[in-house]
């Protein structure tokens, strides 16, 4: 994993870098204020403790000058903070007047990723070229989701009936974790994704591969798997280019085998995991809309074999 332990302070894009700097500055200011308060209280606790048999201290009702000072002082601090806020916001103001490079649509509980220029559709994994500022349009197909890649970009809600835009950019190649941050139902915890930043050449190669459907070897077992995909209810929700592209209720599987995870991050994408997932998805991602189809071991392994060919 790239991004360090604390991605908010270990940014990999100009936008998150500027937020990180701002955050550290604000934390220092807050730390100083906290130190003053704790210092005042601590000093009081040490030096102004009650001594037995001592009389009450003289009444002291306040000091107007002091009170005005600690009203005006913080006002000056927040004026500075406000100026910093304005500056920070200007750096992450996406232009809405150009077509987006990427469209991400939140579904319960997966991410539909579209590359409008190339016409490529994928899910739960976003490939971007390193060093290019991409405009991302965010939508929702059902409830409110929230798109967040801590190391790369601010978070923003995906709201049904509204489109939002943000910049997405990575300074260095790597895989960056992303997740949904607005509670969206039973599968919220497993609505994760990754952003894979690659060099331009790698990215272009990947995109070309995605544009075509996978080549399926004419082996019997694979053809059995394909049959199962077409005859069981899989095809009602999933699309595979070259097989059927009618459905949009669940992730597009055209290049499933090239992805790193299954079920929105709940399992890594290995052959055994895919088999276990097909046998009973509810065991791994309870509440998700993919039912337990009660596949026999033979059916499941044939289907796994077919899906594994979707490179």
């Amino acid at each position, binding site marked *: 994993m790239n991004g360090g332990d604390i991605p908010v302070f270990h940014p990999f894009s100009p936008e998150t870098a500027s937020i990180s700097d701002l955050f550290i500055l604000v934390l220092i200011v807050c730390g100083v204020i906290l130190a003053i308060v704790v210092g005042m*209280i601590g000093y009081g606790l040490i030096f*102004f403790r*009650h001594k037995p048999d*001592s009389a009450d201290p003289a009444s002291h009702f*306040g000091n107007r000058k002091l*009170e005005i000072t600690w009203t005006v002082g913080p*006002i000056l601090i927040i004026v500075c*903070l406000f100026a910093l806020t304005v500056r920070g916001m200007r750096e992450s103001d996406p232009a809405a007047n150009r077509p987006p490079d990427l469209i991400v649509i939140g579904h319960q509980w997966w991410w539909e990723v579209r590359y409008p220029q190339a016409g490529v559709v994928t899910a739960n994994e976003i490939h971007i070229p390193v060093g290019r500022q991409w405009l991302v349009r965010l939508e929702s197909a059902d409830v409110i989701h*929230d798109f*967040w890649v801590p190391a790369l970009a601010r978070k923003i809600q995906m709201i049904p009936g509204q489109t939002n835009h943000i910049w997405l950019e990575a300074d260095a190649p790597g895989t960056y974790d992303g997740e949904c941050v607005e509670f969206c139902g039973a599968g919220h915890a497993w609505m994760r994704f990754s952003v894979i930043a690659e060099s331009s050449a790698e990215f272009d190669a990947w995109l070309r591969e995605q544009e075509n459907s996978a080549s399926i070897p004419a082996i019997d077992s694979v053809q059995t798997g394909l049959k199962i995909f077409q005859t069981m209810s899989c095809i009602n929700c999933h699309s595979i280019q070259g097989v059927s592209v009618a459905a949009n209720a669940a992730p597009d599987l055209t290049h499933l085998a090239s992805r790193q995870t299954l079920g929105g991050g709940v399992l890594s994408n290995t052959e055994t995991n895919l088999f276990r997932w097909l046998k009973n998805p509810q065991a791994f991602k309870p509440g998700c809309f993919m039912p337990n189809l009660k596949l026999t071991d033979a059916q499941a392994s044939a289907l796994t074999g077919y899906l594994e060919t979707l490179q």
Partner: protein
Amino acid sequence: MSETASASVVIETPQRGSASRGLYGWVATADHKRIGILYLLTTLVFFVMGGVEALLMRIQLARPNNHFLSPDAFDQLFTMHGTTMIFLVVMPTLIGLANYLVPLMIGARDMAFPRLNALSFWLLPCGGLLLHFSLLAGGAPAVGWFSYAPLSETPYATTSGVDYWTLSLLILGVGSVAASINLIATILTLRAPGLTIRRLPLFVWMIFINSFLVILALPALNAAIVMLFIDRHLGTHFFAPANGGSAVLWQHFFWAFGHPEVYIMALPAFGIISEVVPVFSRRPIFGYEFVAASTVAIALLSFGVWAHHMFAVGLGHPVDLFFAATSMMIAVPTGVKVFAWSATMWGGSIRLTTSMLFAVAFLIQFTIGGLSGVTFAVVPIDWQVTGTYYLVAHLHYVLFGGTFFAIFAGIYYWFPKMSGRMLSERLGKLNFWTAVIGFNTAFFVQHFLGLMGMARRVYTYPDLPGWGLLNLISTVGAFLLGASVLILLWNIAVSLRHGQPAGDNPWRAWTLEWATTSPPPVQNFERVPPIRSRRPLWDLAHPENPDPIVGGTAARDGFALEKNRVGIVSFLITEGVFFLMLILAYLYYNSHAMNGPTPTSMLNPQRTGIYTLCLLASSFTIWLADKKLKAKQPSAFRWLLSLTILLGTVFIIGQSREYLRIFHAGVMVNSNLFATTFFTLTGFHGLHVCVGIIALLILMGLSLAGDFKQGRIEAVKSIGLYWHFVDAVWLVVFSVIYLRLLL
């Protein structure tokens, strides 16, 4: 005037006999002290439930990829935990404390409306039971305590949990508003002679301001909840974007309530601290005026900061910036308070009783929570950390480290007054140290979890470096915190039987509640000591060195208010906010073109204009009726009253015919958003007119049964005010819906 102030004042003897004993006595009580204790006991039960819910969640989160709870169970738990802690614990606990203490602190015998007070309390267990009944009816709500639409709408939340949630919150909201109206009327009209507003103890002042926050903020929630309920049951689309509704409007409505709510839970806590810190530092509060004014500032600003919960919505940079500015500004009055409390301790003679220890921990923890709150006001930082465990940590520092610690301080401070016995200091110290260590262990690490990217409300998480360990630490802390609550319960149980007798004033405090016995008699006071400053008992104990007199010698403020009038006006203010929300929803949805019926095609301004005139005329007739009653002309009064009822009925008939015409055209409440907002707004108004007519009929009956006695004239005034209000609302509604068509 000085004569009145100097003499001790004899309180009128109680009208009811001594308090009845036994369970029945408690159930039927209208005594503010008993009701206060009922509040506290009830919230204690809910507090334990909310705590157990939290601990179950912490067990589930103790290690990654855990299967202790299903996501559905976990979602129900965090929804119930949030709802319970906010609506069934923090708010009612603070209201309960206010109920017990405010009349004592202002030298009154009881609240202004004792029976309303009992009603407010009994709505709490009703609302709580209704909410928990959902567990038997298919599952508790599982949408989070802010129930974001459209997740809370029927296609996504299929069980009836959300319905129980809405109904229960409505009931609890009504209870809180009623309690606040009662507190406002009590504080404004029942203060002992000499206790002018400028001499109020800060706890009472903050409860006073807080009550206004409640009556202004809760109607926003009620309006939103009513719309959600209509959506779920009548098939309308307020918040369903698929049919033109707006998911963002729910957020606006909810947070327009939700942020003032944060201060509703904080201001009374500030009040407790403002009493505890001076007493145990043996010095008056430093800068009373600044502390009092900063409370007003917080209350005013709290209504203009809600959108900082919505920086991730994409409202546009101008909106984000303005709300950032107001959100930062609210830190200033909060800071003023923290500095004032610290300065009160400075130069004092500090006694670290358990109560004071909790207050000191409050100061530091609340400052941490407040400062992490400032980071949320800096918009770009909010974009990174909102919705993560950093936020969870922040809100618990404010609400647990802040409010709950203040409540604990208050319990240790006032328990002797309520029970007549001291809480054990030995157990108290144990309680404190487990609480402070447990709390900070549980929640400080959550800041880091948030920065590492852990979202809130996830039932489990992948095994990323560090996540499992920090979550485990947090769980251990939570259990330590749970243990400290058990120690508190044990301490209360033991001390109730074996605690040291407290005496009238064990802490040598200065406010009026300590001038009576512990526990106070039914009528609270035999005599109220003279009040000429903010610390009457100090003056009494130190006649050689009294506090300077505050605000001149007058024993009363420059105005005299009647409690029924105060009550009805406060009630109308909260009604006004409710209608304002409905009107704003109407404007919001009808300002752009839509499919289906439109105002122009459905409504006829001229015809409705005539009925409007009838309603306005009825305002005039009830005004005249009131005059006639005062002039002791009962028959003229009855005639005018009948005329008013008649005019009101004509209006209702007119509205019904309008409805029938629209129904006839095939338009129903769920046809489109025009129909939805139109029927909701005019329907609620019509309902109010009907209630008004019933009230007038009751007046009529009373008048026929016999002439009005002195006290009843107030009832005519109150109902008259209500009627004027209903008419005024219609005037606005008419302009918004109908007059716009003529322009």
